[in-house]
């Protein structure tokens, strides 16, 4: 990746924030997007992540103007976008299947948007195409037919084409789903670099939670058309607000129990007739008798090889060990509940598992 500052013509005057104000999209009986509200700030890399059918792609299409919401409002920089056709929204869109125009060369594809607007920075169309080809690491490829390129190359052309008119907003709809794993990681880094170099407000859609965590400034986890949680990747991972987020983002172990006693910063909870101690952050106030759901990440569960006096001991039996190389993912059962943990080497038989109270994160209380 070259550091090509000349491409960025951001004059500092344009800034783009996006606001979705309780937007819904219904198709007949089905609700694809259910009262979603969120704000994306200028220059932010914002990701919509969720399982298929969660409404993430529909939300992106509403932002792009390919479809119009049933209710609610979308605002760019406070300007209402309802009824504004896609060609007047100033968004660059990159699709999963690249969507390059097969009857045009790479250069013509990149230059297509420049038929309707002058290249930013007052350069010629040819120069603009050249600098974008350099930006996406495809110098000299302008005369090729898109179909002669590899998937990764095609996707970079699609990115260059989307960026050519100097859009205020970049929308990426699962741009890497069609690529193999290794290429995906390379392109991920490249997209992130280009995005931060240009400082362009970006909305990214993916079903891959790992991708979402690695690339984003903030993440919105969607499920069933609604927002589960919006936060930074770290917060999403460490402090999931709903059981869905806890389960969807990374591996997790969820427990539900009854609060027996509350002390400063900790609580005693009975889970399946076993008493455990969990940390209580300032965000939650527990009282005795509350039903509490908390989670512990697999890497926070310790396997004890010797007798221990540690609190929170769970005696579980190993069901399966998956050797993944760097780590081993161990599936266990404890009191009819499935547990997962990470070790370096496969395990078998009965094991004692412990966790520190502060590693338990409270998800919900009621």
């Amino acid at each position, binding site marked *: 990746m070259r550091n090509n500052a000349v491409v960025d013509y951001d004059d500092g005057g344009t800034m783009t924030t996006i606001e979705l104000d309780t937007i819904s999209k219904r198709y007949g009986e089905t609700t694809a997007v259910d009262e979603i509200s969120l704000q994306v700030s200028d220059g932010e890399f914002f990701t919509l992540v969720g399982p298929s059918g969660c409404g993430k792609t529909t939300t992106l299409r509403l932002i792009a*103007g390919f479809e119009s919401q049933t209710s609610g409002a979308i605002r760019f920089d406070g300007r209402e976008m309802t009824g504004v056709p896609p*060609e007047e929204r100033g*968004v660059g869109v990159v*699709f999963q299947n690249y969507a390059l*125009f097969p009857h045009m060369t790479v250069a013509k594809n990149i230059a297509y948007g420049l038929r309707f*607007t002058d290249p930013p920075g007052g350069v010629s169309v040819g120069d603009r195409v050249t600098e974008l080809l350099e930006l996406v690491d495809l110098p000299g490829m302008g005369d090729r037919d898109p179909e002669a390129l590899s998937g990764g190359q095609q996707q970079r052309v699609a990115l260059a*084409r989307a960026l050519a008119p100097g859009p205020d907003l970049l929308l990426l709809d699962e741009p890497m789903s069609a690529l193999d794993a290794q290429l995906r990681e390379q392109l991920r880094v490249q997209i992130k670099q280009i995005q931060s170099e240009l400082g362009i407000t970006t909305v990214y859609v993916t079903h891959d939670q790992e991708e979402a965590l690695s690339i984003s400034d903030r993440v919105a986890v969607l499920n069933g058309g609604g927002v589960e949680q919006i936060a930074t990747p770290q917060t999403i991972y460490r402090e999931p607000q709903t059981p869905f987020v806890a389960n969807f983002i990374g591996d997790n172990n969820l427990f539900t129990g009854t609060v027996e006693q509350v002390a400063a910063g900790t609580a005693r909870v009975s889970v399946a007739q076993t008493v455990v101690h969990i940390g209580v952050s300032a965000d939650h106030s527990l009282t005795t008798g509350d039903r509490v759901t908390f989670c512990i990440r697999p890497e926070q569960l310790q396997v004890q090889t010797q007798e221990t006096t540690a609190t929170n001991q769970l005696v579980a039996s190993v069901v399966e060990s998956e050797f993944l190389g760097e780590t081993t993912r161990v599936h266990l059962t404890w009191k009819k509940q499935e547990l997962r943990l990470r070790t370096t080497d496969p395990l078998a038989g009965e094991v004692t598992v412990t966790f520190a109270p502060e590693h338990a994160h409270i998800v919900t209380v009621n």
Partner: protein
Amino acid sequence: MSAGGSWVEKHLLTVCAIATTGLLVLLFFYPVSTVFVEAVRVDGAFSLSAFVEILTDEFYVGELASITGAGSLTAAIDALIQRAAAGFADPRMGVIGFTAYQAALSTLLSVAIGLPAAWILARFEFRGRKTIRSLTILPFVLPSIMVAVGFVATFGANGTLNRALGLVGLGPTNLLFTLHAIVIAHAFYNAPLIARITTAAWESVDARAIETARSLGASPWRAFYDVVFPQLKPAIVMGATLTFIFTFASFPIVLALGGYQLATIEVFIYRQLTNLNYTEAAALATIELVISLGLLYAYLRYEDAQRTLRRGIHTQPRRQLIPTAWSLKTVFTRISVAGYTVVALLVFVGPIASMIIASLTTSDGSFTLSHYQFLLERQTAGASFQVRPLPAIRNSLIFAVGTLAIALPMGVVVSILTTRQYRGRKVMDAIAMAPLAVSGIIVGLGLLRGLVFGVEIAGWRIAVAGSLAIVAAHAVSAYPFVTRNVTPGLASLDRTLIESARSLGATRVRTVIDIELPLVWTGVVAGAAFAFAISIGEFNSTIVLATGSGEYTMPVAIERYLGRRLGPATAMGCILLVVTALSFVIIERFGGDAEQRGGGL
């Protein structure tokens, strides 16, 4: 960013939609509706008497007339009992019954000839396979009157069939003016259609589904019956239904090959028309249309129930026509293929070859150019009321160009409007495809009575010239073929291509011009060639509109010559063949891809 284009650019699609709808109303729906109004108006008052007359007339409804014409329910039941007591002996079909009967026979024969062709085209690999596959669209560009001439030249007293039989000491036989000739000629037209549709379905059978059935214990025949056949069935039903509808309304072939003894509803509509008996013609046309539309509706219901999505299929590998190893089975299948090829050659090549031979031979079989000379003489010395060849050629070409100018934009606009997703799209689709279901005679009659004779709208008298009406009628019957060629391409275009262009600043109209049309261009060109060829060969509405005028075309000229002498008709037929072949070459050159995409008809 972009300013989004001018007002015109933003609303061009709407303008085109309104213009197309307006044209359709003016050229099709209004004229056709005048025909139906005519059918229920007697002396200026509403009356169903024309229908009652037809439906109780034994001449039209045959045996049923004893029931429908009985006057009361009890009398009808009595009549029915009487007929039952007689064991329904010697039933008379009437014109409507005969029309359905010949259509049913034609459909059976078309299926019988079409299915083996589909089997060979779908399951064997051989040189020229793709060419033959694309030749199956030939019937749609072959003028039906020319095919009729070919069959006259084959089956007539001096026809090639009798000559061939004479060579081996058999015959003579006369098939002309028999049901056989009509049914075989209909098979000539429709068997390729059935072959085409079935081949496409066969090619989309997933080989892995068959392999799965085999691995679960099914024999090859059982796998065919359980996996392949259910997927072919909808295609066969579709082909058979279309064949029935087409042959039910068949006109030029029955007119030329059926003589006066064998006539379908369509032929009687034409006869009533030439006798200036408009009400009865209109009533007959209505009855015909109701039957055709009823069938079409039943079929569409069936199709809806059958619809399945097929994606990412692996097609079965084709067998080599000349096998690498011979066994009893491979020998048997190859003998079947060879036998079928002979039949196919006789049915499909025979008539065209007969026409060419007849145009170059005298009645005793020696070579002559006299038939072409006759055309030349007629051109130089013919009286003004006689049909001369050059005006026919000139008119045909002018009308074809005019048809292209109207049908091409109309067809493309309809394609664009019917591939977009919006409420009421299905209705739009049905309305736009309606001209396919209405016979050319009715369109011609409507245009003649409605626009050529003139109508008064708000005090203004509107009348169009006969030639304009002919172009209008041709355009109406041609544009659905443009649509059918363009729509599959447009429908299979990835919508993200269009969305990418939109987000890059292109208006809806610009995406049509920059992205959609260039990508479906082969379909557009093929559609244009279709429209051109349809116009060149159009007979039904032309003969209605050209009657008594100098606006005759090549097909009309052929029919006129055919009434007196076969020779000049075959010579004129050969000229028409050359012109049509040129359009077909264009379809072949540009339309190949469109077919690969599975272009509809």
